[in-house]
């Protein structure tokens, strides 16, 4: 048995899944001021009367770290940054304790300027004196040569800081400013993440529930709680991922599908290609932070069932905010949900209150109330479809760097929409009518997010960089460096990449039989100096493809 739990803004959904599918589901109201209570009570309820020894794992998707960042309730973090030629790293000052020290590594990982260790020690002493406990260390091109970051960590170790995050371990991708924010966020949410899940584990243990805890990541994959401690940033924005994973089992094995998670405040849109979610090329953006945190590509639109409907300058405006529930459920502003009441699609609330709200809009538009309701619903659907079209355009306009990809590259052409979320079922027929696509709800759309979390496969990514002229193979995130002696081919690199992915996935809690490892980027260049081939430069990005684990039915 598996447990999937997804903490949402209003409800915390939890399901218990057996080999034949989910057989128990529970919803509890999310207490945003006390997520711990919500998670614990949901877990208690779902395990009531169950032999918990049969539970192989519980996957938790929470808004914990996301909330901490969005509400700026993060711990003070110290940053030590090594620049080198290019933009002045001061431009990326992300926090008050931000120290730029001298030193430089170039694009091939050669040291151009030695690290100024005295500056590092000065910064360390000042941060220590001011009580900073968590430090991020980032050097430009550290993914080509992490020696400066490693040296800084060694120096800092002498000062007894609680936790040090190094940039090259957070992502193997190039992007210095994003590496700075990624490392910063990891350090900033470290305590809140660790304390929360330790508390969950402990409380469960006290109740005799020794369930292995896994965490859902933004890329729609899972990792064990113990490995998440070193990469807490990966849990940021896992919410949309849960829903998308929940839709996968309803998607056809082949073809492009749009997933719409229509919620109260927003509609989150994602794309599945052959049952695999499309990922962000680099990483998530959250608030002012652009990161290298692997993530599904989602587009969040400020339109949902509870969006405020109003008239501005004679125009009907929907969203982007929610002021409370629909008037049919005791709210004070008209919403698309109220329009659905007027259109008699919904009837489990106060239809009179809904009608009153829509009447306000109808009066301003000079329309009969039914027409106004139709107009509101129509516009809501159109905005959602435009959002989907925007996301598809965005995916298809992603730049590529080879002739082959430009001419033969994959183009997303969706013909099918899967809808989930609270008001999902009311939207199906109309979305179908105006889009011409096949539109269906995801079965058990109310808890599909929790099912998605529960069944998500353990994922990870490895970036391998080979420079045979320098004689080095490097997978910075894995702390893997090897000197090359003798011949080294592309096939060797591929084998190493696969091996590293397998190891990393196992460490993250994967069951090996479920792994689907694939190469997602690969480039191999002959290095030519003076009309002579002097080496090979190989870059490989490999991953466990996000998807669902085997052996359990989703429906």
């Amino acid at each position, binding site marked *: 048995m598996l447990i999937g739990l997804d903490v949402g803004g209003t409800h915390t959904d939890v399901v218990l899944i057996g080999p034949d599918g989910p057989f128990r589901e529970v919803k509890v109201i999310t207490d945003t001021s006390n997520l711990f209570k919500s998670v614990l009570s949901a877990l208690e309820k779902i395990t009531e009367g169950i032999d918990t020894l049969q539970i192989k794992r519980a996957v938790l998707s929470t808004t914990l770290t996301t909330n901490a960042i969005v509400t700026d309730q993060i711990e003070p973090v110290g940053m030590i940054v090594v620049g080198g*030629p290019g933009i002045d790293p001061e431009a990326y000052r992300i926090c008050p304790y931000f120290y730029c020290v001298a030193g430089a590594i170039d694009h091939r990982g050669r040291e151009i300027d030695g690290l100024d260790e005295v500056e590092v020690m000065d910064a360390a002493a000042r941060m220590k004196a001011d009580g900073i406990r968590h430090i991020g260390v980032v050097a430009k091109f550290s993914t080509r040569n992490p020696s400066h970051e490693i040296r800084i960590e060694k120096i800092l170790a002498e000062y007894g800081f609680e936790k040090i995050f190094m940039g090259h371990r957070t992502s193997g991708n*190039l992007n210095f400013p994003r590496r700075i924010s990624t490392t910063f966020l990891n350090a900033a949410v470290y305590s809140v993440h660790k304390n929360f899940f330790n508390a969950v584990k402990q409380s469960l243990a006290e109740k005799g529930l020794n369930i292995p805890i896994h965490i859902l990541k933004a890329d729609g994959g899972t990792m064990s709680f113990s490995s998440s401690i070193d990469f807490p940033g990966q849990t940021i924005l896992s919410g949309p991922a849960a829903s998308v994973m929940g839709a996968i089992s309803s998607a056809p094995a082949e073809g492009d599908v749009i997933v719409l998670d229509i919620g109260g405040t927003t509609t989150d849109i994602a794309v599945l290609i052959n049952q695999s979610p499309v990922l962000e090329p680099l990483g998530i953006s959250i608030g002012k932070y652009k990161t290298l945190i692997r993530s599904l590509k989602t587009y969040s639109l400020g339109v949902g069932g509870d969006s405020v409907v109003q008239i501005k300058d004679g125009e009907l405006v929907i969203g982007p905010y929610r002021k409370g529930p629909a008037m049919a459920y005791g709210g004070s502003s008209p919403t698309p949900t109220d329009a659905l009441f007027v259109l008699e699609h919904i009837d489990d609330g106060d239809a009179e209150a809904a009608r009153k709200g829509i009447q306000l809009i109808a009066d301003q538009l000079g329309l009969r109330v039914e027409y106004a309701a139709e107009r509101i619903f129509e516009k809501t659907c159109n905005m959602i479809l435009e959002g989907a079209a925007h996301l598809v355009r965005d995916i298809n306009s992603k730049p590529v760097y080879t002739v082959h990809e430009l001419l033969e590259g994959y183009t997303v052409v969706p013909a099918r929409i899967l809808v989930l979320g609270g008001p999902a079922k009311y939207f199906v027929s109309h979305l179908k009518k105006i889009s011409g696509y096949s539109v269906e709800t995801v079965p058990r759309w109310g808890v599909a997010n929790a099912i998605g979390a529960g069944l998500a496969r353990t994922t990870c990514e490895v970036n391998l960089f080979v420079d045979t002229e320098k004689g080095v193979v490097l997978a910075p995130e894995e702390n893997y460096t090897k000197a090359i002696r003798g011949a080294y081919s592309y096939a060797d690199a591929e084998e190493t990449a696969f091996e590293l992915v397998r190891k990393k996935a196992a460490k993250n809690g994967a069951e090996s039989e479920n792994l689907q490892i694939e190469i997602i980027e690969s480039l191999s260049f002959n290095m030519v100096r003076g009309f002579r*081939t002097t080496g090979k430069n190989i870059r490989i990005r490999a991953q466990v493809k996000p998807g669902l684990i085997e052996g359990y039915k989703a429906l």
Partner: protein
Amino acid sequence: MLKAHYKTGLVFFPAFDWAIDPTHPEREERLLYTQDQVFEEGLLDIEDIIEYKPDIASEMDIKRVHFCVPDVFSVTTKSHFISAGGAVTMGRALMEKEIDRGFALVRPPGHHSMRVVHGNRGFCNINNEAILVEYLRRHYPVKKVAIVDTDCHHGDGTQDIYWHDPDTLFISIHQDGRTLYPGTGFTDELGGANAFGTTLNIPLPPLTSDEGYLYTIDHVVLPILEEFKPDIIINSAGQDNHFTDPLTNMNFSAQGYADLTRRLKPDIAVLEGGYSIEGALPYVNTGIILALAGLDYKGVVEPGYDAARMAQSADVTRAIKGIGDVVLSNWKNRRDMQEKIRGNREFIERRRNIMYDTDMIYEMQKDEIRICDDCAGALKIDSSADTGHHILGVQIPVHACPKCVEQGYEWFDKASTGPYDRAFLQDRPKDEYLEKILKQR
């Protein structure tokens, strides 16, 4: 958070799967380290630096500029269509006001490609800048264009295409042709009899450094641009003046390139040559992108740069000043000089031999321009190459007068009686491109 002062478009197309041949300077690896630097600096995340996917140029876009022998597809690869298309993408984004400036960081390059194309010369098959300019002239109200070629090699292809066009000011700044391929680009190459003085060449002595280069920009190029008042400025942004370039002998730096860009303020820059792929290109391109965006580039200093060692000698400084004076004087006197060349002739002929170094093709060319005060003049080109092709190309310019239109068609109609295996006509006013196959080879 960084934000660009000028909205800057960027087409980055390194063509990682295309090479002239495996060890050629124009190979897959060329922009690899540039990509690493651009990605690592996070340039594409800067607000208002916008990356565009390149468009693919159409056959028509190429025919609007070139006479390709025997046809467009025989002398190009897919990568050429993308490279030219990338330049067009930037032009269109500029005209649609999506961006203030654009940089097509594309390969293969194009500035050695002339109007007639029998093959590859100087690593170039088709002229990306000319394809861009003529696309803009066709689709937008663009008339006067300045192309400033800062590649270390003379932009002889672009010069050839605009030799007879008084609406295009072509200025090439390069290492003296007596010391470098293609061996042309002297101050007395000033354009045809209808466009005299709108071709200008500034051959700089070897070992010119930032100082001499920027002197030329400030004292020669900018005053001439000021007077010409182009609708748009295009920079053929070759990066081989760099002190580490393996093919040239100049002493320009990444800071110099960024300074040049800041002063020149090109609307669109298009990458040309530059083969110091590790020591120069990553830094020069970073500098150019930051300068275009109006951001601080002072930190972009390449490893090994030593200002004192790169300082130019007094001789070089003197020579540069002398060359600048000649160019300015030619510019000032261009109308009188044009009158002298024309005399009272109706047509002026020019004969040349053209070497295609990459493809080892030898071309003999004769062109004839109709002297005209009302338009750029009808142009006839007779070109034969040791590939066996002998073609006639006729151009009727964009704003052709009725007489030049008539002359163009007359030449084209008569081609069948000549020695040609193919005849081409560019009817620019109608945007029509005609071809006749006269002999099967």
